[in-house]
């Protein structure tokens, strides 16, 4: 790969912030309370290196405080790294703080000029773009009114229009598309795709993984100041979400220790107890254990149980509920006309769910072992939780497969 194909080069970058416990910026305070101005040094980035090719779009993901926004700020050169180097080629535009430098008393048009000047455009260049900017913002009829008369949505639209029409070589974006109404968001999104197609290098920080999957060629997962994984967004997002939900569950678990007892007490679990569910796990189609799945994927649920007393005529069942408690699906071996089961020794039952079309969100799964006509042996409410993710924007509980037939 040729050297000049690299648009952004980040090498071993570290950054720490001083967190002052009690800071005095004045001479008197500095002298009198010298001991007081102690600070803690918090290391936010611990050595990050990555390259971005020209025309590539990458997404930075990670939980809050992991250092992804700091990375973006270093890329914009608002801040500088403590160690390491960052090289950027070409003009950089950022959609980080939209409308920085807007003056409320000046008209929309004047603000376009000042704001674009902050991005390093000359008057001539702005003259050439002003029409595009105004058109894109859909504010033509208000453009000569002072910005203070704008609604916040109009304000953001104007700011976004300026930033995106700078024709930057590198575009840095923090939490995009929280701009304006749904229509305008779609428009922004399409514009971004267009810009990308023109060969602009894009770096996005976002929690909206779906957006990252749609635009980015690569995702970088930053965890506690280090790059934990990078690769195709679909894989990295899944890995990341899986990690997050696991962590969440660990946290929940440690919060409610001595589970076995309290489950019955809280009414989450009941039954005669001759057979008990020991552990529930879920696997993806490739056999890897995970808790996060993509809409439309296969999920294999395995249930380990222990037998205290053999049971005849047993029935296994499961139910899936969304976070509002609405049942999305439920069935059992009797409904499914499975042969009668006799449980005599501990083992594992498996449920193979094909093409699970549940939409993005978290789902609780109830697992039940019953006898005969519904006498509970071990009914375990919310025994397990899975998370579904989807890059598409469709809404509801479950996807309905469909095609469109439209007149051209």
């Amino acid at each position: 790969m040729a050297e000049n194909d690299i648009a952004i080069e980040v090498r071993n970058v570290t950054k720490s912030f001083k967190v002052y416990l009690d800071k005095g910026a004045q001479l008197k305070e500095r002298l009198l309370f010298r001991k007081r101005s102690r600070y803690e040094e918090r290391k936010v980035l611990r050595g990050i290196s990555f390259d971005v090719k020209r025309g590539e779009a990458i997404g930075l993901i990670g939980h809050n405080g992991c250092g992804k926004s700091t990375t973006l700020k270093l890329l914009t050169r608002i801040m500088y790294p403590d160690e390491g180097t960052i090289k950027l080629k070409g003009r950089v535009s950022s959609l980080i703080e939209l409308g920085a430098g807007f003056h409320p008393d000046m008209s929309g048009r004047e603000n376009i000029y000042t704001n674009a000047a902050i991005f390093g455009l000359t008057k001539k260049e702005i003259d050439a773009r002003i029409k595009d900017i105004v058109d894109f913002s859909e504010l033509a009829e208000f453009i000569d009114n002072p910005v203070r008369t704008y609604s916040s949505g109009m304000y953001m639209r104007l700011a976004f229009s300026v930033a995106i029409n700078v024709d930057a070589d590198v575009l840095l974006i923090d939490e995009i598309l929280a701009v304006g109404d749904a229509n305008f968001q779609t428009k922004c999104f399409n514009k971004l795709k267009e810009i990308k197609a023109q060969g602009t290098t894009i770096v996005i920080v976002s929690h909206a993984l779906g957006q990252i999957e749609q635009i980015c060629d690569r995702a970088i997962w930053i965890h506690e100041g280090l790059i934990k994984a990078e690769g195709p967004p679909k894989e990295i997002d899944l890995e990341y979400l899986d990690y997050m939900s696991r962590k969440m569950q660990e946290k929940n678990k440690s919060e409610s220790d001595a589970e076995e007892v309290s489950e019955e007490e809280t009414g989450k679990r009941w039954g005669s107890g001759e057979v008990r569910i020991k552990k529930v796990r879920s696997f993806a189609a490739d056999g890897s254990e995970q808790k996060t799945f993509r809409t439309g994927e296969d999920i294999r649920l395995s249930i380990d149980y222990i037998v205290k007393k053999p049971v005849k005529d047993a029935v296994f069942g499961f139910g899936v509920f969304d976070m509002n408690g609405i049942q999305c699906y439920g069935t059992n071996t009797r409904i499914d006309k499975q042969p009668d089961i006799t449980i005599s020794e501990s083992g594992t039952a498996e449920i193979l769910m094909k093409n699970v079309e549940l939409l993005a969100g978290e789902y609780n799964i109830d697992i039940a072992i019953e006898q005969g006509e519904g006498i509970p042996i071990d009914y375990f409410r919310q025994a397990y939780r899975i998370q579904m993710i989807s890059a598409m924007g469709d809404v509801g509980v479950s996807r309905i497969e469909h095609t469109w037939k439209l007149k051209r």
Partner: protein
Amino acid sequence: MSTIKELYAYRQMIFSLVKKDLRGRYKGSVLGFLWTFINPLFQLIVYTIVFSKILRNDIPRYYLYLFVALIPWIFFSSSITVGAASIISQKDLVKKIYFPRMVIPISYVTSCFVNMLLCFIVIFAVIIVTGAGINFVAVLTLPVIMIVEYIFALGMAMIASAVTVYFRDLEHILGIVAMAWMYLTPVVYSKKIVPDRYLPLFNLNPMTHIIDCYRTVLYEKQVPDLTALLWAAGLGVFFLVFGAFVFNKLQRHFAEEL
């Protein structure tokens, strides 16, 4: 070198900041832009009364003698005192967006400079109305003197604005320094009355030469002493380079400190 190139690319931002500053400064006040002239005029009146009527001196046309020095001085002192707070006052921009930070002191000093140029219209009006007379050849050197002063003021403003970010007291300290500096520069008095043993000290001060040059051109109607001007230019360039160096070092942590 790359800094200069980048600043050139951001010239539109400098223009628009200067414009915003000039337009916004007196916004909402009844007399508006007239304050640009009223302020120095009142200072002129007060100083003239004090130094020619009360503390009497034998300088003819003292008001003009003072006026041609006071206006350039006001440019210099406002560049450093108010310029010191320039980065802090633009902290929203500095924290949120990238641009070469030097744009801020540059545009601030430039707007003070434009103010001075406007006041020079008044100076020339006074010269003409009072019939003091002009040496046109000497006036041709005026832009050079102004540029030298601009360079020096910019260098100082860069240091002042960058250090103030870390050490807020400086803004107030500079108010005192500027007052002392004015009295240690021959603005209200003549360099001739400075005792000989203090002269080397006075000569180290670039403002001594700069103010002297203005006075030579506009009051004495002569071409200024080139060595003095060169000395001032040398010091000015030195301070500009030094100021830019200090500024570049300090600006790396602006966003965190603000």
